[in-house]
């Protein structure tokens, strides 16, 4: 039944996706004007050096994460991101020299085909669109708080398979975005993927800059876990404030919630302050019914609250520092971060 439904969805999607749609003269003129600059391949991405002290033990987190974008035709693009991460820790926890290996991973390598204004087809390895952190906020140059949310290991990572997605204006005040995906099991080193079927849908209200959405994911292997998620993002137009929150539930793995607010002093009197942003995040995680089913999650109920400062030196560089406190039944501990992140964009061809 599920399979028949999935096939039906796919057939409908392909039919809608390949239907050419009519356009007005002005839309055609705008398209022609917008298309004047021909896209070229670019190498983009981020780098970060964020030493982190968790319960007193330092880890030198060093990450380089190149993104390669290759436009193939007007509607087809190849995009990929690799990550090289070295988490260097002291040999004896708190003393000795720093050691550690560099972990490599291919986070995505996908072809995106824009079928029409409603549908984009994606094939290859893609970031799992479960809630928003994984797809939208993960790169260090983007995230406002550097540590991963406690619930991040639930339903995220990368998937090898097929996806259809898009953003559709329902009326000038409301935009629907959706992603439906299927993935295959892979245990190949660096290309790991679970067998999933999932859906994420969100409604964005452009005048209020508010988005609300939910995610659902079924793991079609082993314990056949179901995962549910929901999120909200709000950026009031008049105040330089970002509010983001995500909640996730999986009976077996656990459930939790994080909420983060970030205020940028764009309107401060002193111009030096315009580049500063204060951020606070609080979160909770409850363990699920099957201990150890997801080894990346905390093993006991945990709460954590963090506060920090980000300073945007220019369009590419950000300096940051944060302090947080983790609360568990086994004891409380501090978590500190301090560091720099950088975002680069390099044209691989004539850019003018």
């Amino acid at each position: 039944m599920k399979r028949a439904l999935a096939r039906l969805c796919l057939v409908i999607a392909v039919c809608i996706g390949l239907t050419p749609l009519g356009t007005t003269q002005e839309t055609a003129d705008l398209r022609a004007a917008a298309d004047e600059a021909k896209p070229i391949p670019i190498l983009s991405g981020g780098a970060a050096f964020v030493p982190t002290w968790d319960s007193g033990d330092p880890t030198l987190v060093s990450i380089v994460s190149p993104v390669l974008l290759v436009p193939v035709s007007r509607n087809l693009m190849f995009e990929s991101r690799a990550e090289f991460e070295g988490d260097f820790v002291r040999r004896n926890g708190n003393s000795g020299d720093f050691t550690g290996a560099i972990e490599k991973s291919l986070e995505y390598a996908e072809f995106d085909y824009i079928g029409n204004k409603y549908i984009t087809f994606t094939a290859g390895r893609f970031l799992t669109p479960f809630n928003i952190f994984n797809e939208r906020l993960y790169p260090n140059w983007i995230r406002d708080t550097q540590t991963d949310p406690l619930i991040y290991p639930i339903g995220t990572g990368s998937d090898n398979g097929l996806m259809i997605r898009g953003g559709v204006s329902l009326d000038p005040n409301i935009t629907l975005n959706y992603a439906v995906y299927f993935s295959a099991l892979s245990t190949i080193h660096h290309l790991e993927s679970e067998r999933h079927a999932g859906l994420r849908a969100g409604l964005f209200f452009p005048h209020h800059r508010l988005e609300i959405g939910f995610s659902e994911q079924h793991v079609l292997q082993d314990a056949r876990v179901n995962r549910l998620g929901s999120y909200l993002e709000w950026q009031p137009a008049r105040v330089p404030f970002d509010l983001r929150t995500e909640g996730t539930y999986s009976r077996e793995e656990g459930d939790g919630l994080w909420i983060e607010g970030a205020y940028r002093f764009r309107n401060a009197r002193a111009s030096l302050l315009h580049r500063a942003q204060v951020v606070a995040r609080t979160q909770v995680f409850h363990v699920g019914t099957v201990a150890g089913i997801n080894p990346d999650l905390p093993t006991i109920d945990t709460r954590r609250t963090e506060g920090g400062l980000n300073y945007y030196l220019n369009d590419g560089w950000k300096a940051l520092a944060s302090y947080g406190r983790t609360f568990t039944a086994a004891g409380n501990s501090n978590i500190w971060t301090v560091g720099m992140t950088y975002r680069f964009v390099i044209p691989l061809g004539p850019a003018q």
Partner: protein
Amino acid sequence: MKILRAFIFALTIAADVAYAGSAADSPAPISQPATASTPELNLRWMMEGEKRYRTNCGRCHQPPHKFEPRVMATAVRHMRVRGMLTDEDMKYVLYYMTH
């Protein structure tokens, strides 16, 4: 599960309130009668592009500055897919960021 149910309920209420609020101040439709590209039209596209840039391009990261036009042409298409922008948003933002 209770937390999640309460959370989803709160989100639904927020969506209702947002939609009820925005329906009142719907802007006039952007599409006008068919015209060829003129300076007035270009100015309107530019203003609409800037508005959509402000609405969309700072949602996930700090809004970026304009890179060279052909770099922007790639990045905005990338963002269309990643950020699930509508086709219209992409065209206006592309126009604004490449002119």
